[in-house]
């Protein structure tokens, strides 16, 4: 699948890279080329070549900035081979943020070449409103509800049209009839004495595809003693825009979200999507000195917490987690463990559930290959990465795979159809809710 429209104009692009500012260039120079990023990079693991490694990507960017290599179409493609999993950030001894450099390179490439209509429609229009996004899913809901999907899958009808389209169709998840924003109130009072006010940032994918998981999150936040504010006017966090090099609309949406949540006078902003969490935490940095809201970007970002990060502290010992006799493992979303450095809180929470047996996935911290639209744009490699993950999870003997990012949930659920895995995939809020409900049942509450 070609993702690039028209080839970029080389001379303007060259110029664009020559101005990579001093800070970022320092980051480029910081790379010692030690190669410590190679063994954990998912694309180096699948492809085994240097161009598919963080060290190689940094080398390419440096060569383009120095004017030793042209920012050609091949270069642009290499910048899009990266899954942005940030595993390299975790392992780099010198603190090079190769993933962020790749995003900076994408930005410079996209700023200087014409953008396709579909991409513009999505990144500049659709993501700005949850209702628009929901309406876009109407045909998919229709497709499933009418049973056309059953027919298509039964007779493999799309294979004849195109293998790519067939893959896309196969990946299609269950789409709930209504997004959460349409069924949840804008404010849920704290259960018991109010400890504070929490703004709940609803990621687009969680809202549209996993409304029940996010409903569980809101319920848990309220049980933890917080008033939960869910502003309906919230827009996309902007992660898809950043991934695709788009920053104008990104800044507008970020500014909107900052104003919206700070206006609600919340103590914290909690999200149950790891990718959103990372993006929201980056507002302070990415908005700096640019928009009216910029000075509030840092204030906002400092309030942001991932759901596990928040609940591991907020759910006190008085909250009666009930027993669940299950074998589970936790799949670390890259944007949680590498981008936000959060690995202990979800495990702490799971260990608090009586009876639950938590085992570690042998390759913990490795991407599952979902990575936003990567599973569609780079389907072959994405499937290889998923296959490795399936094998690793299989070694744990877990019957339930817990995670906390919609992309990972989709990909791991797809593993069931693709590789015939028999584990159940749940969001961490769902399993916590299950346990808490069990505990309250026993305790005679409700």
């Amino acid at each position: 699948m070609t993702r690039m429209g028209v080839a970029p104009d080389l001379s303007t692009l060259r110029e664009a890279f020559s101005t990579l500012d001093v800070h970022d260039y320092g980051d480029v120079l910081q790379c010692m080329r030690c190669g410590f990023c190679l063994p954990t990079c998912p694309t180096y693991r699948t492809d085994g070549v240097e161009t598919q490694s963080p060290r190689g990507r940094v080398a390419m960017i440096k060569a383009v900035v120095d004017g030793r290599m042209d920012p050609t179409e091949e270069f642009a493609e290499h910048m899009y081979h990266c899954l942005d999993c940030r595993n390299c950030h975790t392992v780099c001894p010198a603190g090079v943020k190769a993933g962020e450099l790749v995003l900076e390179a994408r930005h410079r490439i996209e700023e200087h070449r014409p953008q396709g209509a579909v991409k513009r429609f999505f990144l500049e229009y659709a993501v700005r409103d949850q209702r628009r996004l929901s309406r876009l899913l109407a045909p998919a809901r229709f497709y499933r509800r009418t049973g056309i999907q059953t027919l298509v899958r039964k007779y493999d009808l799309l294979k004849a049209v195109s293998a790519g389209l067939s893959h896309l169709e196969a990946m299609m998840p269950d789409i709930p009839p209504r997004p959460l924003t349409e069924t949840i109130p804008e404010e849920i009072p704290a259960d018991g004495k109010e400890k504070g006010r929490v703004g709940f940032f609803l990621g687009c994918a969680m809202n549209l595809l996993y409304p029940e998981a996010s409903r569980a999150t809101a319920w848990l936040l309220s049980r933890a003693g917080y008033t939960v504010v869910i502003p309906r006017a919230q827009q996309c966090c902007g992660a898809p825009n950043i991934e695709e090099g788009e920053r104008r609309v990104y800044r507008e949406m970020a500014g909107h979200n900052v104003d919206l949540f700070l206006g609600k006078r919340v103590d914290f902003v909690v999200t149950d999507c790891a990718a959103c969490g990372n993006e929201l935490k980056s507002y302070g940095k990415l908005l700096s000195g640019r928009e009216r809201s910029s000075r509030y970007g840092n204030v906002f970002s400092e309030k942001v917490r991932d759901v596990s990060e928040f609940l591991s502290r907020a759910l006190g010992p008085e909250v009666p987690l009930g027993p669940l006799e299950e074998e589970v493992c936790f799949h670390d979303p890259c944007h949680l463990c590498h981008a936000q450095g959060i690995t202990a809180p979800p495990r702490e929470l799971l260990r608090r559930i009586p009876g639950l047996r938590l085992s570690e996935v042998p390759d913990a911290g490795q991407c599952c290959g979902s990575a936003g639209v990567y599973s569609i744009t780079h389907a072959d490699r994405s499937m290889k990465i998923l296959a490795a993950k399936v094998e690793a999870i299989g070694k744990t003997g877990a019957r339930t795979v817990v995670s906390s990012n919609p992309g990972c949930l989709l990909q791991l659920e797809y593993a069931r159809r693709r590789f015939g895995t028999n584990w159940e995939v749940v969001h961490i809020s769902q399993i916590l809710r299950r346990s808490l409900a069990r505990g309250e049942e026993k305790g005679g509450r409700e």
Partner: protein
Amino acid sequence: MTIELARKLEELLGKEKVLSSESDRLCYSYDATPLVSHLPEVVVRASTEEDVHAVLEAAAKEGATVTPRGSGTGLSGGSVPVNGGIVLLTTGMNRILDVDADDLSVTVEPGVITSDLHAAVEAKGLFYPPDPGSMKISTIGGNVAENSGGLRAMKYGITGDYVLALETYFVDGSKVRYGTKCVKDVAGYNLTKFLVGTEGTIGIFTKITLRLVPKPQSKKTILALYDDLLAAGRTVSAIVSRKVIPSTLELMDDVTIACVEEYAKIGLPRDAAALLLIETDGHPEVVREEGAKIEEACRENGARSVRMAKDAAESTELFTARRMALAALARVKPTTILEDITVPRPAIPEMMAAIREAAKKYSLRMGTFGHAGDGNLHPTCLTDERDKEEILRVEAAYDEIFRKAISLGGTISGEHGTGMAKSKYLPMMVGPKAVEVMARIKGVFDPQGRLNPGKIFRTEAR
């Protein structure tokens, strides 16, 4: 030439094994050595012995140079293709062929990752001691070519001490198998010993048999802090004179300690002048006894504090400072230049003083850490490659450091190799006659100088 050579190789090996685009070539123009790089014409990914043979024959026909490469983590420029030509990747040849628990040996292909080998043999209660710093990604082929060391060298030796047999292709496409699994084997010249550490200038290994030892049953870790670097140096000798050979004996100087604390905030005193990390392994009784002797040696030689780990978790904690050393230093400035001298153990204090003096004289920020147990030190310069004037001072400082190491009976490289980085100092180190002998040997195997040219032997000005 580039396109033609690439096309011929593609016909021979298939398109998927040949990389020749601009970005492919760029990404194989370097290894982990600072300041050196050169674009190859084409890169070939060998996945079998036959591929290696085919590439060498094609290169011979075309008169092309061949530079073998593993994961490219070397620190002397050993896999940088200074004359262009073909880069021959052996990372695809990564099968562990046989772990022989009855005869304590393992046979592997050259592309096996060092730590994968560790895991495979340790699963059977066996142990392959060499543990170079890059072991999570370095290849055994590269380790053998560079004769890599690591943290456990003091007690267990280095890569070359474990190589039993090698299957080697020479640049003309011919192949030699030398060595057996036998401990005693004196048939003819010992070609195995000779080939180890030849840095890819004599041949390309396609099969490697390594000696294994039983995995140590237990270990004990000790961390000692000092107010005086000389006291730490004296401790090293004091441990050895108590007839204890620790499996690890690492040293960090004040600059390194301060950088580690700045970066990781693990509670090291910022005013400490030196740190020793010591580990002993073996039978639990022996380990207990040796641990006590080490502690005593530290205390009697003026350690400000001595901490002995009670369990594996605490041992890991004590290792944190040492593990963080390179990372902490590397973050300070954009360019990190890591050097690799070795001196006899008793000369460590004098060498450390000389390093400090050179850093002061040339106004450089230099932290030193290393394997004090075997005298191998890594003076690490924190600099900025854009500052050409400072880079000249860095070179001048290292020049003095190398001379001092040689004058103390030490060497210009303990474990990184000669490569491009040290070729200038080789004649000073071993004498012109020895270099001439080496050049004659090289000439026998590779008269046209097509295998990994520009390494070890200095051709012209940099």
